[in-house]
């Protein structure tokens, strides 16, 4: 066995944790759990987010629809104006 193998064997050798290690880990894990959300609360929050997104999307679609309608009315108005002007030219 050469020196490298000996080094590796030493480094990878199984070592038992120091006394009280498991208890310290449990305590630390307990401290880090600041807040655990109940399932019903998580579900309600998700529902609110989805509903909010839906309302937002609907609002956006409504505004786009309104702009399109206004544009359509404007085009119609321009064409009607053009016709009216032409008719008046012929029959003032």
């Amino acid at each position: 066995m050469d020196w490298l193998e000996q080094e590796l064997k030493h480094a990878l050798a199984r070592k038992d944790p120091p006394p009280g290690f498991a208890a310290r880990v449990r305590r630390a894990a307990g401290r880090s759990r600041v807040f655990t959300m109940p399932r019903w609360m998580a579900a309600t929050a998700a529902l609110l987010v989805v509903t909010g997104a839906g309302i937002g999307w609907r609002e956006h679609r409504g505004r786009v629809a309104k702009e399109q309608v206004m544009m359509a009315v404007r085009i119609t108005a321009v064409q009607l104006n053009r016709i009216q002007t032409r008719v008046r030219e012929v029959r003032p």
Partner: protein
Amino acid sequence: MKPLLLAACLALPLAAQPFQFDLRHLESKATETLDLSLTHSTLRLAARFMDDKDPEDAEVKKLIEGIEGIYIKSFDFKDGELSKADLDRVREQLRAPEWLRTVGFKNREERDTAEVYVREVNKKVAGVAMICAGPKALTVVNIAGPVDLDSLADLSGHFGVPKLDGKRK
């Protein structure tokens, strides 16, 4: 009997559909195309976002109430690309007695034509169509459904819409 019933069932939704122009023959010729198709559901949604306190919004809301759709197509062409035959193919789709031409204008020198048609079903207005063509442009407006011509005329002053005369040619 069954095929007849099936045919009748298939025909019902088709009959309920509002009139729409078939302008595919112009699309390949045009250099630019504007297509605005507003269905009944889009109009209803838009109406909910109209502010009743705003005079323009209120008038437009009144105009689109009950309308099945607004379909506008506008084409730009290179000079000479839009032929008389092309326009005739558009006009042919507005057949009497359903469609009545209420206004017609033609200027040979400027190659300008403008026409307004009203669709009547059971003596009630069921649509308005406009065909406005110049040497390089064509705009076709189709308002499907029970258009209130008074509401259309009431837009005057806001969008520059003139009052329409209901005289038939």
